[in-house]
């Protein structure tokens, strides 16, 4: 891949990256969340088209315009999120879009099942090709996803965190399969956060940081602390966030005891006035579900107390809002904003639900509330009647934060608040979080980005596989510790 650039609107996700892979080579691609790894690989596999740059295969320039073209070129992408249709059978999923047909035009089910069985056999699993995918365990789905790449002859297989849901033994089997394919000349790009795996299977590495290729070399010549340092980058000479002041006061606002829900269990914490609590974890650690529970958007077990009063499971979002809890959801576009509505209507949405006493909406009052937040959060917007989509991601996010401040929220749950926001605005959001803590708000930041947590958090819960793996105090919150505990490295002693 030569000189690849990918822009998403104003955000440059991948910046002039060059990568080469030889035949039969396994290359590790490293970088923190949001460093641009998945984006780069999507460009290679034809899922998105790069703004600039080209892909050269066997010396000739290729335009990988879509996934089908990539497949014809022998490039297969095993995705991090499982891309399987739950209602279809295993073999139907594996051959989706590339179904084998008899000369009559009807599907050749027998051959497809046989070839699936063979591919799954090479992965050393005994999944029946005729089971419905929805009935499989997460790990089995992952293996099906991997086996998909074995059905057809591939030149290059891209694996985006394939081992997240796998046990050690299953991972070993996966590696064994990879080694066999390697001798047949198949190359791999392997994306993972787990150091031991990378050192075991990969020969060379590329490190991405903020969309830029910052390092490359051989695994044999480095150790894992050197790699981690490359990924997080050296600390700047003076970081304003290093002068961290803790605004925590003794009053407890939210208390969770033995809290459990879909995807997590046994979570305990206390959130104080003025405190910034970060909760982090890799995908599948239960962070997202925990966020939903703390806002009443999902049922839970255990005890949850807000401002001294116990909350029952099954109470709705509005009752949490009335107690002063606010949520800035993850995936802003899908869960946060109303695309069709104006800036002002988006901004007004929490107030009219939590605080308004009459069903009538007073435009002047709404405008006054909006102007107040626009000034205090320095939101860059011209006409509040314009659609919210006319704003940049960062300003949209500020509108959402502002809407909760107007609903008199004092417990703010920020679920990945800087997702898809450019670096400059990210820093504004960090300053905003700290300023809110000073204004005696209690804040929970759910984040998968270690530098972000380092900048704002007073305390950090690190989740691993649905449990709290570590509670880090301010002076323990380093990017290395966060990586260490969120990958469960401390548990892999044996």
């Amino acid at each position: 891949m030569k000189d690849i650039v990918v822009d998403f609107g104003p955000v440059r996700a991948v910046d002039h990256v060059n990568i080469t892979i030889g035949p039969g080579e396994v290359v590790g691609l490293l970088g923190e969340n949001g460093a641009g790894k998945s984006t780069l690989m999507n460009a290679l596999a034809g899922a998105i088209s790069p703004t600039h740059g080209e892909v050269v295969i066997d010396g000739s320039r290729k335009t990988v315009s879509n996934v089908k073209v990539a497949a014809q070129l022998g490039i297969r992408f095993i995705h991090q999120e499982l891309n399987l249709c739950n209602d279809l059978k295993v073999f139907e999923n594996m051959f989706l879009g590339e179904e084998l047909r008899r000369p009559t035009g009807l599907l050749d089910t027998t051959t497809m099942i046989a070839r699936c069985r063979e591919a799954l056999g090479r992965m050393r699993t005994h999944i029946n090709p005729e089971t419905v995918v929805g009935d499989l365990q997460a790990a089995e789905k992952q293996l099906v996803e991997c086996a998909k790449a074995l059905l057809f002859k591939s030149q290059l297989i891209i694996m985006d965190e394939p081992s997240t849901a796998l046990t050690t033994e299953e991972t070993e089997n996966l590696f064994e399969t990879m080694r066999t394919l390697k001798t047949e000349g198949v190359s791999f790009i392997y994306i993972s956060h787990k150091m031991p795996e990378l050192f075991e299977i990969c020969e060379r590495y590329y490190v991405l940081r903020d969309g830029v290729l910052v390092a490359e070399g051989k695994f044999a010549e480095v150790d894992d602390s050197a790699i981690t340092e490359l990924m997080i980058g050296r600390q700047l000479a003076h970081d304003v966030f290093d002068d961290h002041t803790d605004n925590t006061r003794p009053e407890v606002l939210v208390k969770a005891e033995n809290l459990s829900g879909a995807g997590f269990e046994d979570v305990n914490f206390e959130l104080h006035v003025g405190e910034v609590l970060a909760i982090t974890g890799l995908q599948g650690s239960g962070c997202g579900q925990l966020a939903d529970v703390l806002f009443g958007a999902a049922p839970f077990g255990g005890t949850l107390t807000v401002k001294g009063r116990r909350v029952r499971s099954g109470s709705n979002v509005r009752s949490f809002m009335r107690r002063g809890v606010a949520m800035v959801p993850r995936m802003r576009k899908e869960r946060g904003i109303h695309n069709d509505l104006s800036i002002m209507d988006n901004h007004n949405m929490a107030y009219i639900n939590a605080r308004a006493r009459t069903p009538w909406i007073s435009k002047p009052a709404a405008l006054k509330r909006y102007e107040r937040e626009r000034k205090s959060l320095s939101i860059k917007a011209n006409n509040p009647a314009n659609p919210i989509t006319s704003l940049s991601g960062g300003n949209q996010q500020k509108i959402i934060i502002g809407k909760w401040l107007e609903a008199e929220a004092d417990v703010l749950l920020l679920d990945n608040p800087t997702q898809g926001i450019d670096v400059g605005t990210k820093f504004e959001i960090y300053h905003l979080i700290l300023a809110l803590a000073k204004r005696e708000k209690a804040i929970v930041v759910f984040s998968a980005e270690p530098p972000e947590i380092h900048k704002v958090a007073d305390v950090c819960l690190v989740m691993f596989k649905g449990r709290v793996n570590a509670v880090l105090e301010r002076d323990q919150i380093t990017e290395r510790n966060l990586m260490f505990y969120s990958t469960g490295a401390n548990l892999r002693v044996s």
Partner: protein
Amino acid sequence: MSVSAPTNVGSALRRINFRELGIKLFTEYSFVLSFILLVILAATVNHNFFSWPNISNIFVQSCIIGLIALGMSMVISAGQIDISVGSQVAFIGGFGVLVLNQTGSPMIMLAFTASAGIVIGLINGLLITKGRMPSFIATMAMMGAARSLINHFGSGGPFTVNRANYEQFRQIATGSVGLFGVKVPYLMLIFIAATIIFDVVMKRTRLGKHIYAVGSNEVSARLSGVNVDAVKTATFVITGLMCGIAALLYASRTTAVAASSAAVGFELDAIAAVAIGGTAMTGGRGKIFGTFLGVLMFKIISNILTAANVSTFLNGAISAAIIVIAVLLQNFQYRKQR
């Protein structure tokens, strides 16, 4: 009147920005533009177009579909659809006539038709929210059931208003009141009043904002504390209520509700009116004033076609064509914005 809600024409006129108005006319308010073009076309075909009898007649013809289309606007803005409205009108209208014949009181009939509409709307809403059915399926079931039941009880024939009530009851649809030196039909007043009420509800109340929010993004709405199920149900209940009122007016206009043929195709007409009024079929955006003009446009088109001797059997095809063209234009317009 074309720039803002009919409620605050005065204040709006004072702060009109003409450049912005021009841009809005071509984007957000393009339905106003098509309305004007259509009126010009109609005026060239029919030289009496601007005469008061003709104008008031268009309103009279628009009223029944108009009331239903107002409800339909809410349903579609919330991202749903209700295809049971025609059958609702026939069902409620048929039984409404029986109530009238029994009691002799149009007020009792109104109480009956309104509450019957609310109940039907509630059933639709609960099937969709609590039963987790797609609105298309739930209201399709309602469409079939209501039509079949009224056919059964009426043996397919008409429910006719009896002689004792005939003259008095017919007055509702044919009567008028003198205002500003002209005769203003009751139906025209009812349609305009209902439009103003709907406009205020959609623009200035919590329910209105919630409807757009749900139609735009259900997840965001829920995470902002909107009771999504209640909002969806409310849109169907309100549509049912409008069908109830429309059923009474329909009975008054025709004086006989034919079980098998009454209000057939009303769902198509109402949806067509909403579509040409610029409401997004995917929900989230739309204007009551657009639906108001949409209904009028729809009637003007069919008037032009009638004047041109086009068979009334083609009405369905024309409604269908209007829906398709309107939505194609919308898609084109929205794509340009993004």
